[in-house]
């Protein structure tokens, strides 16, 4: 084949360009610490890394939701535990009152105790998390329990005269946080779940008890209330168990997401990130090839027959 000067020049330049191109690409990888700078570099890899990124986003979002839900439920747990303690005190007081040996004066003391305790329950049931009421169902902005003096209202409804429709509407109010794809956790414990509704709601029981104590009713009057109080207490224990259960579920999910996050992060990194040692080695190699090409170039370009004739 006849080889002309322009061919040698062209060849030399082509090789030089391909070397500089390689160096440029490696340097881009080094400076960005990313294997994939454009998605055409590796469309499928890029697609996968995008998918992983969106999955990671979701997991992080779920984890944040779980944290918020856990704090809310822990606040609820504290409040319900306090309720449990108070119920124990009420139970003892009523037990005392039902004993035949109790004098009127002591019944009065018990009545006063109960009035105090009722006030305490009232405060606990209006507990807030941040500035949101936790026992109000959808109602998080206003105190759910209001004492008008003549009656106690829950979200504006009289508990004794509430219709079953109203009650079931209240009971169905859930504050759901999304903690997984299509999976929700209800952070709300309804006030009525704790206190009960209708004639047997705790406030009504206490009110009746206080009146009976103040009227110095005979001991036998109180024994049915012992059962009622006991039932409320069981109810509250159930609520504690439920809150505990929800918190456990959240903790379990949180662990799982932490693990998932780590795994996805590892996969994403293996797709996107460079292997430093590998890229640096390649770059060094490309540089030395480039230098060699330059050296060869000076050999190709300089001499011609001109240097040797005459």
């Amino acid at each position: 084949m006849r080889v002309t000067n322009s061919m040698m020049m062209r060849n030399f330049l082509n090789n030089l360009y391909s070397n500089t191109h390689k160096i440029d690409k490696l340097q881009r990888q080094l400076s960005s610490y990313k294997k994939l700078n454009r998605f055409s570099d590796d469309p499928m890899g890029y697609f996968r890394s995008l998918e992983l990124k969106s999955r990671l986003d979701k997991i992080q979002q779920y984890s944040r939701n779980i944290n918020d839900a856990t704090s809310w439920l822990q606040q609820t747990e504290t409040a319900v535990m306090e309720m449990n303690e108070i119920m124990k005190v009420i139970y003892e007081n009523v037990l005392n009152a039902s004993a035949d040996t109790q004098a009127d004066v002591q019944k009065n003391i018990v009545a006063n105790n109960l009035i105090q305790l009722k006030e305490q329950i009232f405060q606990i049931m209006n507990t807030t998390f941040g500035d949101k009421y936790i026992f109000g169902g959808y109602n998080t902005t206003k105190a759910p329990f209001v004492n008008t003096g003549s009656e106690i209202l829950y979200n504006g409804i009289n508990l004794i005269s509430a219709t079953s429709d109203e009650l079931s509407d209240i009971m169905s109010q859930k504050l759901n946080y999304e903690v997984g794809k299509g999976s929700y956790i209800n952070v709300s414990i309804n006030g009525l779940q704790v206190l009960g509704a209708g004639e047997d709601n705790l406030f009504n029981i206490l009110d009746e008890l206080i009146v009976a104590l103040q009227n110095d009713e005979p001991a036998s009057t109180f024994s049915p209330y012992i059962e009622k109080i006991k039932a409320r207490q069981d109810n509250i224990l159930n609520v504690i168990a439920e809150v505990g259960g929800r918190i456990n579920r959240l903790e379990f999910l949180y662990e799982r997401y932490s693990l998932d996050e780590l795994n996805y992060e590892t996969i994403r990194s293996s797709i996107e990130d460079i292997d430093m040692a590998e890229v640096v080695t390649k770059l060094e190699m490309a540089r030395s090839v480039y230098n060699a090409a330059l050296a060869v170039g000076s050999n190709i370009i300089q001499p011609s027959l001109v240097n040797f004739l005459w």
Partner: protein
Amino acid sequence: MNSFFGLEIARRALFTSQKAIDVTGHNIANADTKGYTLQRVVTAAVDPDLGGTRFLPPARALVGCGVTVQNIEQVRNAYLDRQYRKENALKGEWEVKSQGLENIEMFFDESSGSSVTAAISRFIASLNELSKVPDGKEQRTNLLQSGLILTETINHAYSTLKTLQDEHNRAIKDTVTQINSLVKSIASLNEQIERFEIRGDRANDLRDQRNLLLDDLSKLINITAYENSGGHLVIEVSNKTMLEHNTYDLLEAEQAAYNPVTGANDLYNVVWSSSGEPVDVATGTFKGHLDLRDGDPIDNFGIPYLIENLNKLARTLAEEINSIHSSGYTLPHESNGYTSVTGINFFAIPTDGSGNEVPVTAQNISINEEIINNIFNIAASSVEIDGSYGTGNNHIVLDLISLFERNDIPEVGGFNTFYRGILAELGVETNYAKNKYEGQSALVDNIDYNRMSVSAVSIDEELSNLVKYQHSYAAAARMITAIDEALDILINKTGLVGR
């Protein structure tokens, strides 16, 4: 036989050597000239002179009359030219496509925080925060901001693509101008070449210029160029004659082609100026610009296809979110008169100039004014909020969040996966175009390499030729000396006997 005949042979040899040296000089001088084709002196031995006698001379040993320069020819391979021009058009097409797609790809850079995916992620995060505090003012403001960012990002993606389409449209007009000016230059070169060659010479340097123009033209559009039986150059585009010698048919770009993006006839349509019929463009940079500008179906990837998908995303996003949002109830607040109303859209329903509803597109997607003006019009609750009980109802927000997790939304499947799908297609196409361009480029380089092997000047070769011609010249000069000495003997030293 003529006594001075030997001098005549030597003179011809001298002239021929001189000519050869001149041509060598021309070659060396043009070693770096673009498009220059190596020239060679074609010499031939001259037949014996019969001296005009009617009869054969008695002696049979006839001597030839020396050498003559027949022509100065170009060392060029027409087959390689044809191959080069055919492949060069494909190279041009893929060069435009790979560059165009890379430009699009750059604008869709997903590693930056300003991508559509990032905007969607941000929107989902804001929804999640609102779901936890559905009556929170900051959370509502945050959702509005994220919504605005999302719509602006989609709008920006649209306008970027539209700008790129406009650029390709302008490039088509520019290409038409370029093609026309090249054709005109070639026609005028044809005339010059004919005038030059009518004397029997070869217009080598003019032909070089013409070949260079043909090479340039071949990158723009698919051409076949050949010389017809009359020695005239013919250029054809998809079997339609574009130029024959000095007559030609130009291209015309008229703004009449339908644009699927705008729905108006605002793109350039390229026709033959003689007949007004559309030009059948098969390849070349012309075709590259056309495909990127018009490419709609999947096998012909272009900007309208991307915009169409972006529109689909914007439309379904607006429709699905609106249908959920408008079923929710707003939060009562001083600013909206403590009312909880339903039926408010999150995204605005766009209207045309005369107030008719038009579909949502990537260009016009925007947040409903009612929501921009009052964040309490974001409907988070699934039931009417009576008084201020029930402000914690977040069902609508949860439904909106789960919308982004669905994979069965009509037309798109899932928003995120759909958008990622568009990106993946763009990536695959860009990658394909880049590979295609690199392959085609290597092929054209290879052909050009072969062409150079035949036609380019090798300095070493020219120098060795120079040495050769120098020696020929010296030898011819020596011939004259020899004949001179012979004649000297004949004229001055003969017939002196007895003097």
